[in-house]
Structures are given as structure tokens and as C-alpha cells.
């Protein structure tokens, strides 16, 4: 559905000149700074997939999405989306895609939400019956009725995002690009948004590519992650593999009986780290070296245990580790 081959995009900016008359000299300078927002990115996405596109700020996520949606022309490389080159067949491509930028609305600011939706329906050449059917379905999923007649400028952020999603899904695009769809939303609104994305994918088979900072979005919604940093793909594969590769450990969380003894655990191979607080132990271990049963037996033998849990590493700490180390392990 989406084929991306060796794309790069650079931005040229006049070099800033500092010192006396710096502004004027910047204006006349012929030197440019070249920023490589995306250096060399390739991937392909099948129809119906949900892919999380991750990376730190400035890693090149938004630039990629903008090239995929026809906003930016790559400096080099090729992209086809559903058989079309986005920036060449811009209008035909626009009919296939829905785009939501979390930080910017695509709705008509001064008009009631329903007006924006009617205009969108016309722009995408929808029949009235088709429009009404889709609006009714989206209304059911996103509960739009209470604010359909409110001017967009008066909507809350959560309502506005629901409006933007409705606008993007109204004409049933084959592909949905979501750039930070949950940014700034409260817990309830985030959950509603995630539920919606899940249903759209399952019921309509929409291919979805989402960028986000909120890893809960990714854990909940996607099976596959593409991770980029400094304009290069560091990882492309299932979430489980990313964790396995970067965080091949588990944690045993132990709750102790109140006022009980808290003696030292005996040294055992495979224990990576122990974090001890009153009434609680967090043991990080390598399951390949030490069997979970042995570890639990050792803990129970020496400690008054009331509760035990084995915890997988959170995606968040995995990502932090990748960004900090800045390299990929194979």
C-alpha cells in the first residue's frame, strides 16, 4: 500500500551571521546550512496495517509524513502510495488519504463544525446519502452531536480533535496518517481516540500510520514499530522484538509482609539489579540465565512474601535507552 525507497529530504537555510549587523549580513550571505531532516528511509506498509512511527523530537517523523501525504517533495528517493506518487498525483492521492495533525486543525475556524463537515463532503465529491450514513456512524463512535453546531474556535481541544478525525474519516480514505493524535488530550479523551482508531482499522480495514510521543498509544494500537533517529531507520519490526532486543530482561516485583525482616538476597547468576525500598523489592533479571521458578524459590525462602508479579519492561524505558545510546543492536 505504501512503498518508500531511500527517501531523503534536506532543508537549506541561510547561515546565521552573528556579530555587528548580523541580521543584515544573514540576509546577504550566500552560505547555507543544510539540515538533513530525513537521510535515508525505506519501508513498506501493507494494506490494513497499523504502524507506529517513533522517534525523538526532530528525528524526522513529521517530515516523512509530509512527504507521504504530498506536502513536501523529497530531495531524493521514491514513494508510491496506493500506486500514486503523492506530490505528482497530488489531487488523486488526496482522495485516498486522511491526515490529522494533532497541533493544527483543518476545520474552518469561524464556522460551526457541521459546516466544515458539509464542505469536506463536497470537496470529496460525496453523495448526500453516503455523507449522512458516514456522519451517523462517526457520530456514534465519537459522540459529536453535542457540539456539531458550535463554531470550531469555541470547541475544547478534545472536541476539536474529534472534529478533525471525523473530517479525515468522513470520506472513508484507504489510508490515515495521524501526526500526534493524542497530544494534549486528557486520559478519557485519549482512551476514546484510541478506541476509535482501533475500530476504524478493524471495521474498515484502513491502513494507519501514526506518530506519537505517547507510547501507550503504540502499545495499545500497533503491532509494528518503525523507529527513526537523526533521519535514519533504527528499527522496523514487531513491538515484542524491539523489547526483546533492547530490553532482554524481566522484573520480579515482590511485596513483603509489613514489619517483616528484609535480609540480603544471596548472590545468584542472572540477577542484573535489585532495587530495595521498605516493604518492596524490584529484581531485574535475565530469564535466559536464571529460571523464574528458581528465583522465586530463593526469594520466598528468605523473605516473608505477600505478593509477587513478573513485569515486562515498559516500552518507554526501552525507547529511552535507544535514544540515549543512539544506535541499533542486531
Amino acid at each position, binding site marked *: 500500500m505504501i512503498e518508500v525507497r531511500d527517501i531523503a529530504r534536506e*532543508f537549506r537555510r541561510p547561515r546565521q551571521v552573528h556579530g555587528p549587523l548580523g541580521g543584515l549580513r544573514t540576509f546577504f550571505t550566500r552560505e547555507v546550512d543544510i539540515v538533513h531532516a530525513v537521510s535515508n528511509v525505506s519501508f513498506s506498509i501493507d494494506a490494513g496495517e497499523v504502524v507506529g512511527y517513533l522517534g525523538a523530537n526532530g528525528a524526522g517523523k*513529521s517530515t516523512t509524513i*509530509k512527504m507521504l*501525504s*504530498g*506536502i*513536501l*517533495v523529497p530531495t531524493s528517493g521514491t514513494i508510491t502510495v496506493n500506486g500514486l506518487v503523492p*506530490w505528482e498525483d*497530488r*489531487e*488523486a492521492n*488526496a*482522495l485516498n*488519504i486522511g*491526515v490529522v*495533525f494533532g*497541533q*493544527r486543525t*483543518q476545520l*474552518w*475556524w*469561524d*464556522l460551526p463544525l457541521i*459546516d466544515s463537515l458539509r*464542505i469536506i463532503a*463536497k*470537496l*470529496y*465529491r460525496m453523495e448526500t446519502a453516503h455523507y449522512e450514513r458516514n456522519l451517523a456512524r462517526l457520530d456514534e463512535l465519537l459522540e459529536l452531536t453535542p457540539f456539531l453546531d458550535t*463554531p470550531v474556535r469555541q470547541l475544547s481541544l478534545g472536541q476539536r480533535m474529534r472534529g478533525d478525525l471525523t473530517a479525515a474519516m468522513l470520506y472513508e480514505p484507504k489510508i490515515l496518517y495521524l*501526526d*500526534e493524535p493524542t497530544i494534549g488530550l486528557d486520559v478519557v479523551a485519549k482512551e476514546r481516540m484510541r478506541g476509535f482508531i482501533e475500530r476504524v482499522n478493524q471495521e474498515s480495514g484502513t491502513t494507519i500510520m501514526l506518530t506519537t510521543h505517547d507510547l501507550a498509544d503504540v502499545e495499545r494500537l500497533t503491532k509494528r514499530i518503525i523507529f527513526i533517529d537523526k533521519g535514519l531507520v533504527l528499527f522496523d519490526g514487531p513491538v515484542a522484538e524491539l523489547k526483546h532486543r533492547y530490553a532482554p530482561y524481566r522484573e520480579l516485583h515482590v511485596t513483603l509482609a509489613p514489619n517483616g525482616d528484609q535480609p540480603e538476597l544471596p548472590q545468584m547468576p542472572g540477577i542484573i539489579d535489585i532495587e530495595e525500598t521498605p516493604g518492596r523489592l524490584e529484581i531485574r533479571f535475565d530469564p535466559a540465565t536464571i529460571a523464574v521458578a528458581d528465583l522465586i524459590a530463593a526469594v520466598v525462602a528468605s523473605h516473608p512474601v505477600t505478593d509477587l508479579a513478573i513485569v515486562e519492561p515498559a516500552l518507554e524505558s526501552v525507547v529511552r535507552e535507544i535514544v540515549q545510546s543512539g544506535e541499533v543492536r542486531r
Partner: protein
Amino acid sequence: MERFSLMRTLAGAAIRSELQYRANAVSSIIGGILFQITGFIVVWIIAARFGQIGDWGLAELTFLYGMRLTSHGIFYAFFSQMFELDRVLITGEFDRYLVRPLPPLMQLFTRKLRINCFGDLIGGSALLIAASSGGVVDWSPIAVVYLLLAVVGGALVEGAVQITLGSLGFRFLQTYPLRASVNEVFNVYGNYPNVIFPTALRAVLTFGLPIAFVAFFPASVLLNRADELSVPAWLASIAPLVGLVLFLIAVRIWRWQSANYQSAGN
């Protein structure tokens, strides 16, 4: 044809948005009319004082001014958003035009409506009617059609210049100061008969910036003065066509330059 129906939908939305602010709408129309009255008063005073400007009498000057103003009103009604282009490019609002199934330029034009264009249109038509009652034009059906084509052509000339200069914005982001000065040159020199200027300036105002094609050439044709021009009469009479051709070229340049769009960071 479908495109134009879609454009009407967007223009309708722009008008509805504008009418949300009713007091502003009324005051900008009145302001527009007042602004143009003061502009015309200058021409009127000079003509009344000296009887004529460069052999053109008051009725003829009024006719020229009326044509220029009507043209400018049409230009403003359709292309006013060119003056908001810098903001549209710098904030990345242009992104949204690129992901919709319609040419971005059409979406820019119908982004908002500057209501004060109605001031120009009302003022311009009033001057045209006033001047015509002075009997300076031999009205025939052909003359009426020519007048209509000429004011649209004049709007297209101004539009073409603004679009061409605006397309530099994909590289340089800020082009408003340049475009505003050029617009000012049109406003200052477009209202007077080109013949009063020195020859070199006349050439610049014809071929450098095509200001003479906006109103002076077609007005000369309607006023039976085309044989007094420093260009062949046929060139003056195809002014409306020149407007259309320049406009089509400008749209080409715009499309070619838009590949340089840089968007804005999130």
C-alpha cells in the same frame, strides 16, 4: 466545471465566516468607499484646477479612474488572499491545501473574503456611470462587452503579477513587502493616463510592470484615443487577452515554484 462549483462552496464558507463579524463587514465596506473617494478627489482637484491632465478632460479621467478601480475591486474580490500568503506559508497552513483534492491556489483564493473589495466595486461602477453620462464613450453592445472583458482582464493582470511575485515565497517565505510596494505602484500610476509620463517610464509601466494593460490601454480604446498611444493600437485593444495570458503563465510559475515548499516544523 466541477472545480468551479467546489470553489463556490469554499467561497461561500469564506463569506459566511466573514458575516460572523457583522460590524466589521459593514465598517470595511464603508471604509473602502471612503478610501477610494479621497483618492479620486485628488484627480478631480488637479483636473478642475488645470482643466485637463495630459490632454485628457475630467470625464475621460473619471472614466479611466473608474475602470481601474472596478478592475482593482475584482482583483481584490478574487485575489485578496495573496496578501495573506506569507502567513499561510510561514505557519504551515499551506499543508492543509496540499492534502485536499483541489488546486492549492484555488483554496488560497477562497480562504477568506476581504469585504472592502465591495467599496472598490461600488466606487468604481459609480465613477464609470458618472463619466459615461458625460458622453465620452460611443456606447454599443460591443463596447459594453469590451468594457466587461477589460475590467476582468485588468484584474487578471494584477493577479498575475501578485501570483508571480508570491511564488518567490516558497523559497524566501516573506514576499509581502515586495508585493505591497508593487501593488502601491499599480495604485499610484494606474489611475493616470500613461501619456503624461516620460518615455522611459512609459515603457517600464507597459512592459516592465504591465500596468498600462490594466486600464489605460482599454480605456484609450473605448475613448477613441488608441491612435495617440506609443504602442500599436492593436496591442492596446487586446489588453483583456494579455491579462488572461499573463495569468495563465503566472499559475504555471506558481506550480513550478511550489515544489520548493518547506512547510513549518511541528
